């Protein structure tokens, strides 16, 4: 039998724990690098917008946060599907570790959107389709976290949360389109977010910041999943060995 590299080996918390620990500094470093480059491009190099002045620069936080809030929900649903299909322990832990970061991103996106909206549109909040669906996404994150927190048995929490994520992922497009049609039927499009053309440096700054947020999310999720693993597997030998190794 050949001794091939087996990806599934890392589906076990005992082997994933050290791997995650080794990967965290790597992701943190990339995140910081991308963040510095993105902020440099966004704050110093990118030209001032002729309509919105300097205020538009909040886009370099706002858009990456919105992207990540949506992307993390998909990743959670992916882990939920894997967990329900293959009955793996780690997938549920990953989904739970990602949830607070996803909710944070949705919140940042709404918060920066309000800060941006006030000077540009003259209102903290408008019932625009995108804003409304982002708010609903935040509700979905909160619902998921509330459900998993209410169930004491960790395995049941993973499975019930996973099912909720899958139901949510099916519903997200329906909700998005219903909100969109609702909005256009009610008041017409008073806010046009579409930009005719975007300077190259602005686009690059935004992409770099998105990479920074992405890598940050991975790093934080890995940190969180490590503590979840220790907490759930506290009665196993490998956790005792790890804790003794760390001198605690």
């Amino acid at each position, binding site marked *: 039998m050949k001794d091939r590299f087996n990806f599934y080996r890392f589906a076990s918390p005992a082997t994933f724990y050290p791997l995650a620990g080794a990967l965290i500094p790597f992701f943190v470093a990339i995140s910081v690098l991308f963040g510095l480059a993105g902020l440099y491009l966004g704050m110093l190099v990118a030209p001032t917008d002729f309509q919105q002045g300097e205020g538009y620069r909040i886009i370099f936080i706002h858009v990456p946060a919105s992207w990540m809030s949506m992307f993390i929900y998909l990743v959670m649903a992916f882990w939920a599907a894997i967990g329900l299909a293959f009955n793996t322990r780690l997938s549920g832990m990953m989904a739970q570790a990602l949830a607070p970061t996803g909710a944070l991103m949705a919140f940042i996106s709404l918060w920066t959107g309000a800060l941006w909206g006030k000077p540009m549109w003259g209102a903290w909040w408008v019932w625009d389709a995108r804003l409304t669906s982002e708010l*609903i996404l935040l*509700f*979905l994150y*909160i*619902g998921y976290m*509330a*459900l998993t927190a*209410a*169930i004491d048995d960790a395995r*049941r929490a993973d*499975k*019930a949360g996973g*099912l*909720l994520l*899958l*139901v*949510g992922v*099916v*519903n997200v497009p*329906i*909700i998005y389109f*219903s*909100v969109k*049609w*609702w909005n256009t*039927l009610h008041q017409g499009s008073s806010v046009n977010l579409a930009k005719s053309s975007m300077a190259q440096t602005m686009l690059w700054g935004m992409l770099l910041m998105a990479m920074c947020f992405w890598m940050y999310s991975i790093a934080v999720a890995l940190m969180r999943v490590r503590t979840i693993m220790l907490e759930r597997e506290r009665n196993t030998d490998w956790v005792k060995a790890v804790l003794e190794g760390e001198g605690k």
Partner: protein
Amino acid sequence: MLKIITAVIGRDLKLAMRRQADIVSAMFFFVIVVSLFPLGIGPEPDLLRKLAPGVLWVAALLATMLSLPRLFADDHRDGTLEQLALAPHPLGLVVTGKVIAHWLVSGLPLALIAPVLGIQFDLSSEALVVLTGAILLGTPALSGIGAIGAALTLGLRGGGVLLSLLVLPLYIPVLIFGAGAVDATVSGLGGEGHLSLLAALTFASLGFAPWASAAALKIALE
């Protein structure tokens, strides 16, 4: 297949008829919530006519939420649910029956009172017809989606509040198209498009939700 569904519907209806107070109190909750709005907003007919579809629909969502925890809780407490899960029929069919029975005792009465409440809001007769039709078409979707939430929160502490956190965001499309149908009729655009979408939501959720709830019940019963 139909036999199982009708058997479950018959059983659940019989149980519900033995405890009529539950049905009536959910209906009065609906009536009271709707009646509170004019008191809070003011009696101007123009304003009320504009608000009526949204108010009635939001109250209908809340009234449906109120009866959802009981969908599985009683059967879970006395062990019936475990027997149903052990039975040779697919659990999804049993849940389909329970969802239909839930609609008959919670959604249907709402549709029957809604026109009376609509008169209080000075809606035209045409709008009242669409309102009744929309509630008839939309509430099965509420029962279906709600069943998933009820199954997920089965036996948890603080289940009721948690249930509303999980289910209300998923109710948003039904709310939008339900209230939109009445709105469109009032403004003269015609509500057929909204009603078709509402029917689509209902059929989709009646097709899929019972199976998702059955999976959730199996997780809860493990």
